[in-house]
Every structure is written in structure tokens, then in C-alpha cells.
């Protein structure tokens, strides 16, 4: 991607690049999903349905586990735009997985405030326990480990997201225990957000 002949771009993919996802199974929204999409699309002027593309892609990901090419084509058909327009959105945003991932995606915040509280070690402990590197999925297909950027809860560092679930103040010493908790109880085992005093 680099324009400099002697300085190649560092690693793998950048969000500004194009990336082809696997084709995946043939995809279509269920009638309920379609109705939910139409409800969301009605929040925008009729000729601006494309505004709801992110919602639609999340619905594909909910069902397939990642955004497949057949899913993107379906979204394009439902919105009434080209598949390329959907694809450029899907590849740009970090929360869309471009290929199949494990049952639980462990997303450790790596940005400064979390790193100052030991986030690098959280990642390291988990990576060692699962024998994988960040970005990879373990052999059982249970866990994918990802490093993500600031999640906006830096006072409760280090912050970890497991799929859409929120988990705060993850000490490096207990990082491996988090895996056991998630294996046993899924997202229900996470701390949630401490702002929530109702618990």
C-alpha cells in the first residue's frame, strides 16, 4: 500500500485498503430481520436508506459471525446500492470481521491508559495460555484474541470486550481466569460496566 519504493507498509491490512471476505453461505435476512432493518431505515429520509448500512452489516455479522460477501450483496440489494458501496464500509470499520472468528472474540484495549495499567501483559498472558498471537484464533475455534484501540472507559483499565460484552479492570494476574469464566458462563461472566449501580 505504501507509495514509497523502499519503505513497505508495516503489517497486513490497513482500514483504507480493499479486502475480499470469503463468499460464505447464501445469505438473506429473515422476515423479522428485514422488518427490523426497514424500521431502522425509516429513521432517515427515504432516498438516504444507505445511512442504515452499518446496522444492516451488524445484522449480517450477528447471523453469520462475520460479514461474508454474500451477506454484503444482500445488504446492497436491500438498500438499493452497489455491492462495492457496501464493501467499502464493511472493510473500513474495525468492528466488522472480514473472516470467520472464534465463538468468543477477546478484545483487549491496548491504548495508553490501559497499557499503563498492564494491558500488554493481559494480552501476553492470554496469548500464551491459548498458544496464539493477537489476531489469531485458537485451535478449538473457541477464542479469537484481538488488540483494539481505546474503548472509552480508561478509568477502569485495562478494559476487555468479549464479543459485545463489557469487562473492566482486568488485572494481568487474573487474565487466564477470564478465559475459564467465559468458557463456563459466556458473556454473563463479565464484569459489565461499573457505572451500572443497579446490579
Amino acid at each position: 500500500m505504501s507509495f514509497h519504493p523502499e519503505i513497505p507498509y508495516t503489517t497486513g491490512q490497513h482500514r483504507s485498503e480493499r479486502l475480499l471476505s470469503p463468499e460464505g453461505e447464501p445469505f438473506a435476512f429473515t422476515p423479522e430481520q428485514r422488518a427490523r432493518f426497514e424500521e431502522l431505515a425509516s429513521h432517515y429520509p427515504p432516498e438516504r436508506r444507505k445511512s442504515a448500512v452499518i446496522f444492516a452489516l451488524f445484522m449480517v455479522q450477528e447471523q453469520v459471525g462475520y460479514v461474508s460477501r454474500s451477506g454484503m450483496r444482500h445488504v446492497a440489494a436491500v438498500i438499493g446500492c452497489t455491492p462495492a458501496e457496501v464493501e467499502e464500509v464493511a472493510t473500513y470499520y474495525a468492528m466488522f470481521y472480514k473472516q470467520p472468528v472464534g465463538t468468543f472474540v477477546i478484545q483487549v484495549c491496548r491504548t495508553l491508559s490501559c497499557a499503563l495499567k498492564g494491558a500488554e501483559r493481559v494480552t501476553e498472558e492470554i496469548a500464551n495460555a491459548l498458544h496464539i498471537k493477537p489476531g489469531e484464533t485458537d485451535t478449538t475455534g473457541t477464542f479469537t484474541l484481538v488488540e483494539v484501540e481505546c474503548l472509552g472507559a480508561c478509568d477502569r483499565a485495562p478494559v476487555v470486550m468479549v464479543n459485545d460484552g463489557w469487562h473492566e479492570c482486568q488485572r494481568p494476574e487474573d487474565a487466564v481466569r477470564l478465559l475459564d469464566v467465559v468458557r463456563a458462563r459466556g458473556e454473563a461472566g463479565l464484569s459489565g460496566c461499573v457505572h451500572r449501580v443497579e446490579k
Partner: protein
Amino acid sequence: MAMEPILTPLVREPGSYTLDFYLQRLDGYQALRKALGMTPDQVIDAVKASGLRGRGGAGFPTGMKWQFVDKKSPKAKYICCNADESEPGTFKDHLLMERNPHLLIEGCAIGCHAIGSSVAYIYIRGEFLHVQHHLEAAIAEAYKAGYLGKNIFGTGFNCDVYMHRGAGAYEAGEETALIESLEGKRAQPRIKPPFPAVEGLYNCPTAVNNVETLCNVPSIVLKGAEWFAALGPEKNGGPKLFCVSGHVVKPGVFEASMHTTVKSLIYDYAGGIANGRQLKAVIPGGSSVPILLPDQIDVPASFDGLMKAGSLLGSAGMIVMDDTTCMVWVAQNLLHFYRHESCGKCTPCREGGDWLLKMLSKIERGEGQMRDIDLLLSVADNIAGKTLCAFGDAAATPVLTTIKQFRHEFEAHIREGRCTCPADWRAKEPVGAH
């Protein structure tokens, strides 16, 4: 300089996010009622007189921004609430939306009235799913009770507030990139002018306002511009939410006036440096602003105070670092962020960010050469101010400021061929280092 909280009173009380709580324990929707009895221009004048400045980062006067919205245009007008909150070290909008969402909804509705709009979109970052549930529930409650929808308070004013979910992009916080993202495209900035006030969302006049900014509007309407302005130093009025994180005893969000000093925020509000260590440096306004040293922090944490001290208030995210922190590593950590988050539209930022990260990683590993320091400065200098949006300046700043304040650490890394300050809270094997 303690102050009665205005934005975050009772946020720790159970059920503080419900409509009942907002109506019974706070002045719920009284300000909207009052604002609808005023003309839009009167509302804008009040906000102008209050001196409210945008809380998203740039500190631009909100009343002026609203006045610039082209009211005579025959097109629809829009409020876009910026709830992308992705600036490292910032987590105040998170608290507001989770614990006091009706305040934001009321602020959006008043904003719509002021600029002649009937729709506000709240663009919330995709990762805040737990916050979205609260916000959606609050919006539904507000519709049901008639504070949103058609003919509010029988005044003929219609207002819809919708939540729009993002999907992981820091750049979506930049106002024109936010608009692009709302239109269903990549979050990449537009060329300005035209500014959003003239051509924003769907090419219609648009005001983009931060969550905390809009949350300040109800109290201005209700209690008056003079009251609001008097809460802080001149031109820095009103309450402010400060986010303190990093190596402090009690990290958190603190509401205070902008008379409060950075020192007091760190030592009084956040309980000082953890583990009995010493302060080494603080980034006072989210990761994109210059570092302050311990002898520079006895200054008011206001827009003007911090500018005078050589930094910026930015998003008021204060990242505190103790004496075990390696400053080359800090720059490397932040450039990893900026490289990852660059939208890729402008070459200096997309490519330069990657070069900076690469050189910093090399120095941090102990493989740097002395000439790399000047090369870093030169590349950073070729990014700052040479991109469509302020992201470029933000990405260059961590490099420029760490070298300015801690050049000796860079030199020591290069001389000794290793990191001279490896803290035990860092990875044993550097992760994610390239």
C-alpha cells in the same frame, strides 16, 4: 473549588437513567418547556451569552456554531450529536449517556428548536452497546411521554431523536467524517469549506455538537447565561467533566469548574500518584495534545489556561504517567493508535503514521540510530497541518512533544541499544511491536 455537580448529580443513584428519576429528582424537561416558549434566536442568544464552548475538543463557541447554521435555506436542518468518544483517555460522554441520557435528549431537542431542525441523530460509537440500550430506552420513554415526537407541549414543535450506531473508527469523531459515516460511507473527512453549518448531513445545514456540550444547554436555558458564565473563569464558563486515568489512585470522571488546576485534579480529585511513585508527565487533553511536566501543572484546566501553559484542554482526558514510564514507549503506543485509526484519505497521515511507528519501534527495541530522531521530527513535521482534518496534527503531536520534553530518553535508547526504562507492567515480550 468544589462545585455542585450540574451534569452529573445523582449519577450513582439507582435508576438515575429513567424518565421518572429525571422528572422527580432533577429538573426534567423543564428547560425544553421554557425554551419552546422562547424564539430560536433567544435560545441562541442565551447560549452565546453563556460563553459555552464545545466540549468535543476544539472549544469553539456553541452559540456561534448554531448561529452559522443557514436558517434561510429551504433544506432540512440537522443536529448531529457527536457521541463517538474515541479520543484516548476520554470517557465522560460514556458516563453521561449511561447514567443521565435524558439530559442529552433534552439538549438535542433544545438544539433542534434553536437551529430550526426537527431531527437529531446521536452518533454513538459501536463499542458502547451497553450504553446504546440505555439511550434507546430513554428515547422510547421520551416519545411515550410526549417530550419527543409531534407537537411537543402543544407548541407545534416536532422533534425526532434517533440513535445511530458506529462500528469502530476514531476518525468518525471528526465532524465531517461523522457526517460521511452517517450517510453510510467510510468515515473520511470532507474538504472544508463548505462547513457543516452550510452543507453538512445530506448536504443540508447541520450542527455537530459533542454530548457534553448539548448536556450543558438545558441548565443555560433554565438558570440563565450569567449564572453559567460565572461558574468558571472568563470565557471558560460552566461546569466541565474531567477524565483522569493512568497512574493515579482514584481514576474517574470529575465534574468541576475550569478554575480547578491540573494539579488539583491529579492530587485532590484523583488521589495523587498510585503506589507512592512520582509524577513524570501528564497529557492533559486526550492523546492528541502536548505533554506537561510536573512543574507545569499548577495551571487552570481551562481552554485558555492550558493553551497558555503550552498545551490544550482538548477532550479533557488527562492521562497521568508515573516515573516508571518510558517516553519512547509512550510515543510508540500512541502512534500505533494513530496508524491504526488513520482513515487513509491523505497520504502524509496514512503513510507518515506508519513510518513514525516503524521508527519509534526500532528505537524502542534498541536498534535506532541518532539520525532517526531528526528523521522523526521531519516526518512528523510533514504530517502536521498537511492533511484535510486535524487528525494529522493529532498524530504528529505525540512524537513532537515527547522528543521536545524527553529527547535525552530517545538518545539513551539509541546509545545503550535497549529500552532504558522497562516497567514491570509492560509485556515481557513486546506485543504488537513491529
